[in-house]
């Protein structure tokens, strides 16, 4: 059943803003898109930075959970190009330095150790440095960035953008120890210097396939995580002509496209899933196939070729590999398939390395191998030790690591101020009416019928010579502003005052998407008499009693395009369009 609400609270309004709700870091998407539409790129960038910290990076390589959630994709087909608009804010911003948080000269006496200079720990540093904390980052590589540097290929994310946004944080005054892998947590704790430790070491062990012949294939079979890092750090510069990538996720796409740039002419991705079951984002699959990469589905690797002068993989054909979303391969009755190749890259998942967490450091692990994180968010069984990003909850993505970083920073701040991290401040909701007068709204409420703008790209024949050539050129300001107009302003909320309603039907009649219904008062569990049937189980419903309790005003939020017609036709102001701003709690906000 859809979630129903008689009361409109912060969570209700937050869920109406599908993109912001879906974003792990709860970036206020419609708000920054409006700023872009107005040409205020610097403001849009800074607003982004508040929640997602790396707008230039994430504007290129985010997993974009916001886009499948976008209301536009339900109203028509394609969501707003939210991610690429974020990049536009980064591309066209002015000088942001004057607007960055001020770092206090006088520090408090708390030093926080951050293990791993990836997105999670960098976010913690970003949040805690302005509050007067000191941070020390321990990084095993020579550069900061973690997986953003070692795993994301430079043709998707230029080093310049990466350096710029990482340096913004490091310039807040973080102390970074490079080439300083922490091998013993106990030893670090024994220094008695740190008030809290954050483990943000990511998931840096690529999974291997234990198949016959694997050992003899060692010279031509690589693990994706290591291989991508070796390419990124310049240790690997070439690859064989025929490359097979095993796996159906985004890493497989990155490996295949990288191989193409290192000289491979025949790149094949082989996945056991059906095409629609692959975990890779549809746009990454699209980008890979566009570059001539072949994807073969329903093949499960069986063994490596072991004969001399013969390299390749044996597969068995599958009928299916999942049953009710659980791994359950059903083999086809067919001969094994041999795919010859020169090199194989295994992109079959990754996990975290907790080897440096010694016995006696007070950190407990659950049976699934992940640390036990108590009711206090991201706090381990040793209250001084926090986990963030992939190291905390298993492999996810950059934006989730950023979101975790914010949570950990807040937890640490609360913890070190003697408060319980589980008693978190509520998200702050501010609302302001956007109705200026009769038929006048202060935001652009008309429905812009326009297809999603494709992002301009470097032509295919120019992109493979240099590995660093960024494929996407990004939106021009003109394209960005056109795309920005597709946003439906879901943060301008329809707010209902049931006492003012005279049940005249004006809103019900005018609503273009049949979102509103006035029905006789009835059971909320089985609503009858709706103008249009409910299409989604997940969407929230507003229910208000009107007409002395005799009737219900029901709003199905699913397809509301926030055009404001209901508020404009309402004779009593019972419907109001109010701009909502939802600020989730962050470190320092409780002071």
């Amino acid at each position, binding site marked *: 059943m859809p979630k129903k609400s008689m009361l409109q609270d912060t969570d209700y309004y937050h869920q109406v803003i599908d993109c912001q709700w879906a974003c792990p870091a709860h970036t206020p998407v419609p708000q920054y898109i409006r700023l872009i539409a107005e040409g205020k790129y610097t403001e849009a960038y800074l607003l982004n930075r508040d929640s997602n910290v790396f707008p230039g990076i994430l504007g290129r390589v985010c997993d974009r959970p916001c886009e499948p959630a976008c209301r536009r994709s339900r109203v028509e087909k394609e969501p707003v190009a939210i991610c690429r608009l974020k990049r536009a804010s980064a591309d066209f911003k002015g000088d942001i330095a004057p607007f960055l948080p001020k770092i206090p000269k006088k520090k408090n006496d708390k030093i926080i150790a951050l293990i791993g200079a990836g997105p999670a720990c960098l976010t913690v540093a970003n949040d805690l440095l302005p509050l007067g904390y000191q941070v020390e980052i321990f990084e095993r590589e020579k550069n900061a960035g973690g997986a953003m540097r070692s795993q994301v290929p430079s043709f998707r994310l230029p080093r310049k953008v990466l350096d710029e946004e990482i340096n913004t944080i490091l310039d807040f005054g973080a102390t970074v120890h490079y080439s300083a892998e922490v091998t013993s947590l106990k030893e670090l704790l024994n220094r008695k210097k740190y008030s809290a430790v954050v483990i943000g070491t990511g998931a840096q062990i690529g999974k291997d396939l234990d198949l016959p012949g694997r050992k003899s294939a060692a010279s031509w079979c690589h693990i994706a995580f290591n291989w991508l890092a070796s390419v990124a750090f310049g240790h690997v510069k070439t690859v064989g002509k025929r490359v097979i990538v095993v796996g159906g996720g985004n890493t497989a796409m990155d490996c295949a496209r990288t191989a193409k740039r290192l000289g491979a002419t025949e790149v094949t991705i082989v996945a056991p899933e059906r095409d629609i079951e692959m975990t890779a984002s549809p746009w990454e699959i699209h980008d890979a196939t566009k570059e001539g990469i072949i994807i073969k589905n329903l093949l499960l690797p069986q063994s490596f070729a072991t004969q001399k002068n013969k390299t390749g993989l044996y597969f068995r054909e599958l009928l299916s590999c999942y049953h009710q979303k659980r791994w359950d391969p059903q083999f086809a009755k067919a001969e094994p398939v041999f795919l010859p190749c020169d090199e194989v890259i295994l992109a079959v998942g990754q996990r975290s390395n907790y080897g440096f967490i010694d016995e006696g450091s007070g950190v407990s692990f659950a049976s699934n191998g992940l640390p036990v994180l108590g009711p206090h968010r991201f706090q381990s069984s040793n209250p001084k030790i926090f986990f963030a990003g992939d190291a905390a909850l298993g492999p996810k993505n950059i934006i989730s690591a950023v979101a975790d970083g914010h949570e950990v920073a807040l937890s640490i701040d609360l913890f070190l101020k003697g408060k319980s991290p589980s008693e978190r401040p509520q998200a702050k909701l501010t609302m302001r009416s956007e109705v200026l007068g009769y038929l006048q709204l202060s935001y652009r409420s008309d*429905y812009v019928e326009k297809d999603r703008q494709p992002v301009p790209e470097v032509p295919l024949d120019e992109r493979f010579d240099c590995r660093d050539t960024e494929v996407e050129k990004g939106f021009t300001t003109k394209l960005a502003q056109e795309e920005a107009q597709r946003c439906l302003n879901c943060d301008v909320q329809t707010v209902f005052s049931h006492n003012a309603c005279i049940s005249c039907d004006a809103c019900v009649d005018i609503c*273009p998407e049949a979102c509103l219904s006035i029905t006789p008062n009835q059971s909320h569990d089985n609503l009858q008499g709706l103008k249009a049937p409910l299409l989604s189980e997940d969407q929230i419903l507003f229910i208000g009693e009107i007409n002395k309790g005799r009737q219900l005003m029901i709003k199905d939020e699913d397809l509301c395009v926030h055009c404001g017609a209901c508020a404009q*036709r309402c*004779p009593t102001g019972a419907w109001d369009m109010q701009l909502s701003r939802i600020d989730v709690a962050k470190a320092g906000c409780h002071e």
Partner: protein
Amino acid sequence: MKNARDKLSHPSLTQNKVGLVPKDYHGEMSTLCGGCGHDSISAAIASACYELSLEPHTIAKLSGIGCSSKTAAYFLKSAHALNSVHGRMPSVATGANLAARNMKYLGVSGDGDTCSIGLGQFIHGVRRGINMVYLCANNGIYGLTKGQFSATSSLGVTSKNGQTNPYVPIDPIILALEAGASFVARSFSGDKNQLVPLIKAAISHHGFAFIDIISPCVTFNNHASSDKSYGYVQDNQVYTASIQDYVESVPEIMAEQTPGRLTSVLLSNGEEIFLKAVSEDFDVYDKEKALQLMRSFSGKKEILTGLIYLEKHSHDMHQTLGTTLENLRDIDLSKLTLSELELKEINESFS
């Protein structure tokens, strides 16, 4: 907002039998005050025509002058329409209907158009039995001229500016019954569950169908001392019968499903509506009882709504006149006039 309405429609609202979706029955954006009952009537007409799968080009919308008469622009954008002189809509309807009897005629009018300046036109339109639906959006006020009392304002009610109405009202329902309307109903703009099936039934009826619709004027007649405000009608609406359903010629199926309390009413086009009578002795075919019932409600607090009278064997103007079944406008001129030879023969017969 007009923009969104023109471009979008809910994906589950599917095509009707003639391949149209609800939005195809919309009109221009209303310029009436937000919350006007007339807008609800427009929406109800659009729903009724969508549900009946009528093709807009087979419908003519006719109106006079007034807030109500403006609404002809706000539904069925692609239907024919004529916004005529104040109170003269029945004459225009007569002419149009004579020329093209096979079209559907929707007259939208108000209490001023119907009961003041156009009273005589209205009565004679009913008398002639034009095959049309005549909707009177009755708000008891002259809204377009800022809220003076109209001919349907109840005796003793006060206007928004504090004046008391010294005149007895005209009840268009009683006039329609007396003048021979074969389908008479009263409804409320805020009650689409009743209004939409009534409009559908009226459209399916052959003969003069009259629906008086209490339609609150939010700007001038929605105050506490009004008896045509949203609140008043919501509190005091009573029903002759509740219309259970509107079905298209499937009586045997319905007979199985419906208990005996429902009365099936067969419309002249073979379609059927079901009435659940509120009082046991209510008989929708008894004109005398209908008149008594209406008179008994005059001066009462309650407003009686629903289908009030239906003539069993209704007929229309064309049957009275014995005209041809074809649309007159479609008949070739040579068929309508005498040839030279025929004329000569007639003339010679007098010599």
